């Protein structure tokens, strides 16, 4: 039994709004299973005395003061947009509802 099923990959693709064909699912699902398996090997290295870690640095409370700093102009911000209208990013029709 692989760690990730074909159905789970289809569901993930749906959440990511990627349209996968049956052939692509057949192709990708086993690949993802292999990747998960490889990552899992880390579990074997970690002994009981190694707590789960999310950050590599032993730091806390890294803050910035609440000060406004210049950002981008609208022209700069929109420079890479495929389509622009009314000084806004024009994006394809929404698939489904707002999150």
């Amino acid at each position, binding site marked *: 039994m692989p760690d990730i099923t074909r159905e789970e990959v289809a569901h993930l693709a749906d*959440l*990511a*709004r990627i349209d996968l064909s049956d052939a692509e699912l057949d192709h990708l699902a086993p690949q993802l299973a292999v990747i998960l398996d490889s990552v899992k090997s880390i579990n074997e290295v970690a002994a009981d005395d190694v707590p789960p870690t*999310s*950050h590599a*640095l032993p*730091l*806390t*409370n*890294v*803050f*910035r*003061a*609440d*000060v*406004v*700093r*210049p*950002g*981008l*102009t*609208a022209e700069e*911000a*929109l420079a890479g947009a495929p*389509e622009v*209208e*009314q*000084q*806004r*990013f*024009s*994006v*394809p*029709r*929404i698939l*489904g*509802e*707002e*999150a």
Partner: protein
Amino acid sequence: MSTSTTTRLMSFDEALEKFDPVMGLEVHVELNTASKMFCGCPTEFGAEPNTQVCPVCLGLPGAMPVVNEKAVESAMRIGLALNCQIAEWCRFARKNYFYPDMPKNFQTSQYDEPIAFDGWTEVEVDGETFRVDIERAHMEEDTGKSLHVGTSGRIHGADYSLVDYNRAGIPLIEIVTKPIVGTGAKAPLVAKAYVAQLRELLLGLGVSDVRMEQGSLRCDVNLSLRPVGQEAFGTRTETKNVNSLRSVERSVRYEIGRQGALLEDGGTVVQETRHWHEDTGVTTSGREKSDAEDYRYFPEPDLVPIAPSREWVEELRGSLPEPPREHRARLQAEWGFSDLEMRDTVGAGALLLVEQTIAAGASPAAARKWWLSDMARRANEQGVDLADLPVTPADVARVQALVDEGKINDKLARQVFDGVLAGEGTPDEVVAARGLAVVSDEGALSAAVDRAIEANPDVADKIRDGKVAAAGALIGAVMKEMRGQADAGRVRELIIEKLS
């Protein structure tokens, strides 16, 4: 879309006889920090689209976020004011979803480690106290704003969307209650009172503008029904887009009626997001609610954990304003309001407005009079919250000052408010533009009184005979001639003088 025009509603009373409502309220508060949560972009409302953005809030590759310390401080002060515990150590998490309002494809939020948790507050409705337990208050960021362009104007019919990221990354605090039980028929009012009190508390803390109509305070209402006497909760719906105090109350009432009818007819409530429609006063079905696991939360690797020292927490606790209950008791004593007057003021959502009007120089009685009678009627007619009327406490105080100075009377004051509400400017500007000052020219007044006496000899005779109450008819005639712009008290004095 299941926009059902055929939705059957059970009457509120019948629903409450059969079912016991359970509510959960989620309030999102935009903080009023100068800069965004993770970048230095400004947060001003109403700027030109995409002029308050940078690589961080646009989610450009390689951009690194840094936490705004003031936002963390505000989050902790909110938590403390709600009697919460403050986490000794907590992290941000990525909430993954794919929607163009979040260009990073995730929202930086907190998941199972909120900065504040396990709190409570008490709200009063009609003299009865209800305890609301707070599950958590966590930090996150706001999303961009989408404008849906298309023929039908609905999201589903939109051909494409236009996105403005000015709002993306503005610090948000989400405050989540535990299930609120035992409110029965008071449920809609308890929900409204809770949100109203939260607004007061946030304003007192100075952490947010709490303008519901601008979206800096937004409420989602979770509601389920269970048969009276049953312990287990029913299936709940989450109503979004509830953006005024009166909508909070109305949406709770609506869902009670809708779910009541559904359950009575043997149907089941679908666990889903529903959208509140302010104009029609109904909720419609949105998407089915995603499981938390669909968001694939994981700790945000780009932000190190937050571990507020206990000294910091205690320092913030020491900076809190007095709690709402004490605050109200003190105000009531200061203002000399009866319990009923105070209750009406709070119930109308006018406490802050009255407080600010008094601070701007009006007497407590005058402040209460204007907000609870005149302004409440106008807000009701327009279907908006009092706070959303385009008139400020300073305007009300100024109008009262003009009355006190004898420049206008109450009748003219109402016309001044008409002008202010119509966007004609400040009270003084409206008085000048509309020529509303009362006539203080004694000669003109005296002549008008003489004419009124001459035109109404029989009334004048009655007054001469000592029937002073008849003076009303003459005062009316004078006021009519002066088009309302006279001091009625002075007119009365003149009539009595001339006829005695």
